[in-house]
């Protein structure tokens, strides 16, 4: 092994990450420290049950129900917990509203903090060095790489999730969505629009 010294114990594992995971899973299982069925349960949860559809339902409801929206913006935790959207990496939620004057965008420059109960596991780009390093310094250039160009009159507020508080962007309800049901509205809400790197639109 190239780095076989005292402060790098991980180098004792095989070089191929897939093998390394397998080796670690095997040794932990043999010692009774993990239940492989629990791993499957966790993976199924985040692969199939918890994802951005949760956040989209919240946004659609906020677009449809002014009282719900006011409560959500004032104190999101009880509102979201009431809907069952509480849990790991979503213990302290704050919802921030986009307006014509201000666009919000979320990053974690120190790691990859993200509201799991509402959006699931973050996409690869959110965890990338490029997004983490640049979103705070040049949010408009980053947004342009997502195809989002903001009007000159709109300021950008970037939220760097440096504590355990997790942020969800409430995008503006798109023009042409009048009269749509909550389900139809939720279908307009992309994962990226709740991070602030996309703008919902009604398909023409």
């Amino acid at each position: 092994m190239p780095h076989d010294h005292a402060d790098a114990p991980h180098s004792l594992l095989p070089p191929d990450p897939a093998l390394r995971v397998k080796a670690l899973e095997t040794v932990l299982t043999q010692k009774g420290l993990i239940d492989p069925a629990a791993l499957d349960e966790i993976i199924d949860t985040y692969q199939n049950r918890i994802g951005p559809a949760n956040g989209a339902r919240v946004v659609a409801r906020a677009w449809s129900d002014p009282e719900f929206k006011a409560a959500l913006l004032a104190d999101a935790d009880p509102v979201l917990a009431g809907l069952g959207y509480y849990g790991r990496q979503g213990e302290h939620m704050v919802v921030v509203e986009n307006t014509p004057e201000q666009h919000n965008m979320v990053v974690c420059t120190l790691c990859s903090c993200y509201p799991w109960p509402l959006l699931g596991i973050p996409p690869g780009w959110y965890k990338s060095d490029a997004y983490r390093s640049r979103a705070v310094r040049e949010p408009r250039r980053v947004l342009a790489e997502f195809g989002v160009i903001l009007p000159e009159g709109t300021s950008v507020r970037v939220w760097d999730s440096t504590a355990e508080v997790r942020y969800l962007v409430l995008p503006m309800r798109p023009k042409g969505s009048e009269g749509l049901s909550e389900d139809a509205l939720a279908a307009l809400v992309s994962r990226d629009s709740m991070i602030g790197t996309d703008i919902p639109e009604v398909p023409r």
Partner: protein
Amino acid sequence: MSRLHDMGGRFGDGPVKPEPQDAPVFAEDWHARALAITLTSGALGQWNIDTSRHARERLAPLDYTRFSYYEKWLAGLVTLLVEKGVLSRADLVAAEAGGGRQKEGTGAEVAAPHPLAARALQAQEVAAALARGGPADRPSTIMPNFAPGDAVRCRRPGGNRLVAGGHTRLPTYAVGAKGQILRLHGSHVLPDSAAHGLGEAPEPLYAVVFPAMELWSAPEHPRDEVVLDLWQSYLEPV
């Protein structure tokens, strides 16, 4: 003062490459396993979230740079497992030799049950454990010094004041910068202390808004802003 993970504002990382909204949650099967093993190992109760972040952050800079995201998780996890005495280096050597295959049982390797085995997260407990989460707010005897609208400055120098080179959640790009209190989040566990086994030391936590012009020599737009969540001990009045 800073470590490689503290990359906010860094130049040279190239374009962001968005993925389709419907891309798989886990690009590789082993990513899913790495995440799940990390969560189940955490359930053994030998470390907290701050300890585990610090374990990733203190990877050798060369490793931090070249490792993919879940390789960093895995490396941090193995560091913790060994440091906390959950596994030994000999266990890892044996795991490597086995290449991840279950050993043929000779009987000789069957030892006494691991002292932490009773804490292993079982499949039927997963949903409740994920739903329970791990809130970080705590009662504190430290009263808030600031209110929304107050002008504050991030203390200089930055870095952990309790442990040289230790974990902190004040990004270097904000050190010395002037901002304004936006909201009080209540009192939260102080990572600088909790990451190092020094106690939770809860204190007031604030959202603080900084004009981009205060942070960057060439901001994109005069009215843009960055908000950070910062603990009271990171801040001083202006």
